[in-house]
């Protein structure tokens, strides 16, 4: 029947949060909005993929052209030249030209949006850096060679926009057509939007002209239905009953149960660009004392938390042994040589001059309650054994971000993600300066200096050595305690193929096909 036919060619994808904008650069866009934008817009380049432990994950080091047929980095590393595909067309049929690319990247570094702050990390800050050579050649100039410049262009934000169309929708107050683009697309991507209800659902239709998939293919599914289903348990039910084709963001229990039933395909990948921490504010007593931080590091029941809260789904970052107290590798993150050892914890506490412990609060946010709540309970219980009294505080997400930003929380759990997970990127963004993302508020001149230096270090071995030193310092200072990299569980119908774990931790629909 017609219905069965359409159903087979349709991908139904359910998520917890909704898609709130069609323009991924809008402040507040959800991850789901990012994922959709990957299918509606093309970028100049994109990441390749590689297999890791038998699972496909994105590959930061293999950057391939998307709208660019090819690219070339000048030997001094200051110029990147892109040759654009001649066959690429926007959804309205007009060709994609270097003018469009220029307007789009100008918009990314100029307009008030999320893109600006991101592209900054790749030394892309000004329209002056972007130059149209000819209709199909485009050049980017960098002030300094930057490893992250090219990868940045493969992230979610630098979308290539149909500049004629967008400009026609621009107004004096809104020169970059940001209002219009929230609800409309002006891209060249694999899908066009059929219907879009913010926060609820979106239906996308295949762009038949788009042939930039692997081996020059179209996207596999004719339609994609994206729906928000807030209840995680219901999402699990939907995929189990075959009403949804693929689901991520399940509760660990549901993922484990579905895996155990064996009817569906479950692909679990550690989110290797994400880390869950227990953090201290290093400026708030008693956490300004490294011995207190270490005492807690040895008093956390890692194994229990990992089992009870995560059902063992993820990659632990504890329980390593470091030969001579030095970090064995220069990547970030690496497993730390900590484990539950109350005796040692008490020693550190005594060394900190607080043998009888103290009282503090441990915070986490409501959105994370599924794993953070059991974690908090176990930490409270375990710290209680060395005399530290913990009160648990559960905060709505906005409150938690505010409190973190104002550096008011002494002790809490949070997670971080880096789209471009290189060692120096982590250290620079999460351990330096008075910014929100420096959860621990650490301010160590040596660490800062080293991390900044690593950014522009071209030599692989030296870079690795710097990484080892930073990792060792991290353990010595113990500004916060990495716990694990949570697992991303993608549960899908058995006939779905091609799932790849992406840097944005969402499903890229263009990857998928079905047998």
């Amino acid at each position, binding site marked *: 029947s017609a*219905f069965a036919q*359409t159903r087979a060619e349709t991908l139904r994808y359910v998520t917890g949060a909704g898609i709130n904008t069609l323009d991924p650069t809008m402040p507040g866009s959800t991850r789901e909005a990012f994922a959709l934008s990957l299918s509606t817009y093309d970028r100049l380049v994109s990441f390749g993929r590689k297999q890791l432990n038998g699972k496909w994950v994105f590959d930061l080091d293999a950057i391939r052209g998307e709208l660019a047929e090819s690219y070339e980095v000048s030997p001094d590393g200051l110029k990147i030249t892109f040759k654009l595909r001649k066959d690429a067309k926007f959804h309205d049929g007009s060709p994609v030209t270097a003018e469009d690319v220029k307007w789009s990247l100008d918009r990314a570094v100029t307009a008030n949006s999320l893109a600006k*702050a991101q592209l900054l990390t790749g030394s892309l800050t000004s329209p002056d850096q972007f130059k149209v050579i000819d209709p199909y050649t485009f050049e980017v100039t960098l002030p300094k060679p930057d490893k992250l410049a090219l990868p940045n262009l493969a992230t979610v934000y630098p979308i290539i926009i149909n500049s004629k169309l967008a400009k026609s929708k621009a107004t004096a107050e809104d020169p970059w057509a940001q209002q219009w683009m929230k609800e409309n697309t002006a891209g060249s991507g694999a899908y066009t939007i059929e219907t879009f209800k913010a926060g609820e659902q979106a239906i996308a239709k295949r762009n038949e002209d788009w042939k930039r998939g692997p081996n020059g293919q179209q996207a596999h599914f004719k339609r994609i239905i994206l729906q928000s289903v*807030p209840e995680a348990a219901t999402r699990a039910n939907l995929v189990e009953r075959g009403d949804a084709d693929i689901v991520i963001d399940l509760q660990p229990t549901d993922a484990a149960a579905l895996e155990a039933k064996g009817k569906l395909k479950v692909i679990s990948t550690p989110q290797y660009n994400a880390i869950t921490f227990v953090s201290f504010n290093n400026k708030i007593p008693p956490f300004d004392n490294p011995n207190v931080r270490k005492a807690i590091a040895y008093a956390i029941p890692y194994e229990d938390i990992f089992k009870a809260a995560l059902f063992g789904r993820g990659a632990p970052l504890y329980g390593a042994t470091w030969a001579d107290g030095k970090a064995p590798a220069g990547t970030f993150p690496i497993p730390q040589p900590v484990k539950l050892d109350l005796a040692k914890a008490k020693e550190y506490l005594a060394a900190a001059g607080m043998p009888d412990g103290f009282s503090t609060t441990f915070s986490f946010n409501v959105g994370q309650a599924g794993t953070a709540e059991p974690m908090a309970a176990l930490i409270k219980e375990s710290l209680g054994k060395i005399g530290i009294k913990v009160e648990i505080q559960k905060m709505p997400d*906005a409150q938690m971000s*505010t409190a973190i930003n104002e550096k008011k929380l002494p002790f809490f759990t949070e997670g971080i993600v880096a789209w471009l997970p290189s060692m120096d990127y982590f250290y620079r963004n999460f351990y330096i300066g008075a*910014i929100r*993302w420096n959860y621990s508020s650490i301010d160590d001149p040596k660490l800062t200096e080293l991390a900044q230096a690593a950014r522009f270090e071209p030599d692989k071995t030296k870079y690795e050595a710097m990484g080892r030193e930073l990792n060792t310092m991290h353990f010595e200072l113990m500004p916060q305690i990495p716990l694990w990299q949570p697992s991303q569980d993608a549960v899908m119908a058995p006939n779905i193929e091609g799932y790849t774990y992406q840097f944005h931790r969402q499903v890229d629909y263009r990857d998928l096909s079905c047998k």
Partner: protein
Amino acid sequence: MSGLGHTAKRAGQRLVTSLPALFGVLVFTFVLMRVLPGDPAVFFASGPNSSQEDIEMIRRQMGLDKPLPTQLVLYLYDIGRGNLGRSLITGQPVLSDLRERLPASLELTFAALILALGAAIPLGVFAALRANSLIDHAVRFFCSLGVCVPTFVSGLLLIYAFYYLWGIAPDPTGRIDIFTSQPTRVTGFLLIDYLIAGDLDGWAAAFRQILLPAITMALFVMAPLARMTRAAMLASLGSDFVRTARSIGLSDWRVIVVYALRNAILPVLTITGIVFSTMLGANVLVEKVFSWPGVASYALDALLASDYAPVQGFVLLMASIFVLVNLVVDVLYGMADPRVTVE
């Protein structure tokens, strides 16, 4: 006629007297939202590299950098022009979000109310006719059972049984099966729009979809309705005019319906108004469980994200609906009870 004029006048008066309350709600919500410890700017400037400047920029955009009284005046001015602000979560004007989602909430609430009344009134009447019998106790017990299960539990259980285990119900993902085409929007109420479009299959699909959430909510409010019906029926069955009706030889049916129930319906009407307003506020849990794209779940998300404008808009909307519902109840009451119009 003068009765109608009277009713209109009363309605007008009601409306005017409820304006201060609406204003109070407006100001109270405004202040309450600013008291919340969350800063929306921080929350929304959540790109991994957002700086303090980004936060400041968003604050400026939202006007949060101005002193509170100025913000309030600006807000009131905006409201006066019919502008409820813009939601940061959805990026849409709050007014259009609410317009989009309100029919879903109302449709669900109405459906639940109709179900609840349809069950509660006959049960209440029956219980009153057999007061203190086993049937009476059974009705009481059954209705109380409904109120004592949290809606999210009964909702999840219904989904588990009817969708997951038995596959009878459609998937609990909103108002309409995603593969069914939507009717053209006239009223926003799917059940009505399908009828207007003459699409009976679509209507059936929408009906199947609304059934479980409506039952979940109806179970929760049946008890007060049935209880009130029973009490009112008992009172009116024991009253003199019912005895008069019996003494002139009317049939039982006429005595019960035309005389007793017709009078008992008055207090039921009042409680129905109250129940309706509480349902509108309390259906946030049901909306969450059934992925129902209504206003309450929208407001909840906004609340947790400290997204001021949607919460304020939602509360104002609910308050207006409350006023409106009261008005309707009042007018209905006036029509049902001729004694009201004198005064």
